């Protein structure tokens, strides 16, 4: 948001009047609704307040990234829902970007089959309503996945079943030291790339910063195991029989089918829009640029990395930010297939059990607003960092 547009232009009185009136109108509107809501709630004997957040939630949630059970508070349930929303959004954004970039480049391929395939993909997944796709993936997954006793077995450590994808659980000792080593690796990488850039710009020397970075990323955490006292054990899921025909895996971590289907649907759908952005971005870079780059002897990879991508990114990023926001908001379809996101857990179950519609809906709306604003400011920051800097 640009603050300048809000500042009052005092010199120009003609413009001042509508601005003041608009402001007055907005204030009146808000107070009117607040007042009316207050009166209506009083009439119906509904109290307003956020005290309920500390009350015991008394319902359980099937999938949570943090410790939770029904004896915890509504606030805790909110946090569980929020984290689940974040989880599926992050996974969705990553996969959507990967598919989107691949398909977007694929649409420009000189290979007819590849280009056609990419086009068909975009047309199909962009034009079917997301909710339908969600049901499709969910119930297709449920139909296709085997029962636990016939699980798809990956090397006896991981199993895919209709009840979820069971993977080993990491059990850490001195986890914080491991995290520090990763942070240290990242700081080192930033230094190396800064240094490499300087060397290249000042002395024309090429330092393989990418390979050094990769090495650092593995070496430092590895050292934390060798000398930092970090230990990692795995808890491997095992099949347990619970009755004549009911089996399930115990131990390990279960990636539930609801999460898989939701992430799948969101990313397949959003990827179509990202693909179109990528295509537009690449087409938007002038042909002359590439030819000029080729004429000074850059390789094809270098042209893409140093000439085309930096310019294309500036075209791609703003509309793609929108898609990231859409994906995050669309994740609220989760309720349809029982993925316990913030809408299902908080704006659904908690709202029903407490009846605190106004409070809960405003908290939920505020949360989505905050999420959207964080994503767009991050993307704005990123966009600025790739923008061409006039020297």
């Amino acid at each position: 948001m640009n603050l300048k547009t809000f500042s009052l232009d005092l010199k120009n009185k003609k413009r001042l009047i509508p601005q003041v009136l608009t402001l007055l109108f907005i204030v009146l509107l808000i107070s009117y609704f607040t007042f009316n809501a207050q009166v209506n709630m009083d009439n119906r004997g509904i109290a307003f307040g956020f005290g309920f957040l500390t009350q015991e939630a008394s319902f359980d949630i099937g999938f949570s990234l943090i410790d939770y059970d029904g004896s915890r508070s509504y606030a805790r349930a909110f946090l569980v829902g929020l984290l689940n929303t974040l989880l599926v959004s992050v996974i969705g954004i990553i996969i959507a970007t990967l598919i989107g970039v691949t398909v977007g480049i694929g649409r420009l391929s000189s290979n007819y089959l590849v280009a056609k395939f990419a086009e068909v993909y975009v047309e199909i997944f962009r034009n079917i309503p997301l909710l339908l796709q969600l049901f499709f993936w969910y119930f297709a997954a449920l139909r296709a996945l085997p029962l636990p006793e016939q699980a798809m077995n990956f090397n006896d450590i991981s199993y895919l079943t209709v009840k979820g994808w069971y993977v080993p659980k990491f059990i850490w000792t001195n986890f914080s030291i491991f995290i520090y080593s990763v942070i240290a690796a990242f700081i080192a990488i930033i230094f190396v790339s800064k240094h490499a850039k300087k060397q290249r710009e000042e002395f024309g020397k090429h330092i393989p910063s990418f390979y050094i970075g990769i090495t650092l990323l593995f070496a430092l955490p590895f050292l934390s195991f060798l000398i930092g006292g970090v230990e990692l054990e795995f808890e491997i899921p095992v099949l347990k029989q619970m009755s004549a025909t009911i089996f399930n895996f115990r131990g390990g971590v279960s990636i539930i089918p609801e999460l898989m289907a939701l992430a799948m649907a969101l990313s397949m759908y959003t990827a179509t829009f990202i693909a179109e952005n990528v295509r537009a971005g690449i087409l938007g870079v002038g042909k002359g640029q590439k030819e000029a780059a080729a004429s000074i002897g850059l390789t094809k990879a270098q042209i893409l990395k140093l000439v085309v991508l930096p310019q294309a990114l500036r075209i791609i990023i703003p509309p793609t930010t929108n898609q990231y926001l859409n994906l995050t908001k669309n994740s609220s379809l989760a309720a349809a297939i029982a993925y316990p996101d913030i809408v299902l857990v908080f704006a659904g179950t908690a709202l029903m059990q407490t009846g605190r519609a106004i409070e809960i809906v405003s908290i939920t709306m505020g949360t989505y607003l905050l999420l959207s604003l964080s994503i767009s400011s991050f993307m704005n920051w990123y966009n600025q960092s790739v923008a061409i800097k006039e020297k």
Partner: protein
Amino acid sequence: MFNTFKNLILIVSASLVLIACGQQGGGAGSKKSKTLQNTQKAGFVKCGVSQGLPGFSNADTAGNWSGIDVDVCRAVAAAVLGDADKVKYTPLSAKERFTALIAGEIDILSRNTTWTLSRDADIGLTFVGVNFYDGQGFMVRKNSGINSVNDFQSGISACTNTGTTTELNMRDFFNSKNISYEPIAFEKADEVVAAYDAGRCDTYTTDKSGLAAQRTKMTAPDDHKVLPETISKEPLGPVVRQGDAVWEDIVRWSLNVMIEAEEYGITSSNASSLKDSENPQIKRLVGSEGELGSAFGLDNEWSLRIIEQVGNYGEIYEKHIASTGIMPDRGPNELWTKGGILYVAPAR
């Protein structure tokens, strides 16, 4: 300059709309029923039902609703509008139902809704009675080897509807048995059934009537069975908004009339012939004695219309629940005179 003017007009007209709305919104505590007036003006009863629960509220392919929950709304329509068919149905998920009622989208919620203290007291709702005494149960696959809730073991996954008492009871139950479980809560019943059918969960839990009704929708109903235990009390009944006492009474007594009519042997076919009955209570129920309707601002034939157009409770039960095979045995929903617990205050 032109723009300033345009803005002004916009603002003024918007404010006028607001002031007008403000006047319409007021008026609590009057003796007349606002809801009744609005219903009579609109010409139909606004009734919230389920999204499809055979026997309770279910639409056929032509969009005609039927079931014992639907019949509560039909009874009210017969009483206040003279025609049981003058009802507008709004299908609602468990999660949406109370918001829809409080917001005034519907005036009666008749959707297998459990009467609990917190719902009655907390959210601006009032329960008017019970039209089905139920309890929560579990459904499992017949071949599962589970014959009682005592066969459940930790790690079991249970599918249910979100925003229901079921979710809460389930936790109490499994906790008391010290069994860890995976709850999977869907918004719509159809998805619950589909997920359970596909093997996503080992058991499906909700009101026993709901289990029996949903079983009829499954691909192979005979592969499933309902466990004998009942883990909660679920008195299901119609709900109205708090604050309109007359409307509340109309709905309550429309339900009571159907139950009392059965008690006195008044049916849809014999009701009008009983006008000269010896029994004064029968005469009151068919409107040939007393002035019961005037208490709500209705004529004296209101109860006769309910019985004639909708039927007594026994007829309704037989038509929707027993003959459809959902729950042939009336169990607690039998009259108190016949060993059940259906007992309503006398209409006099």
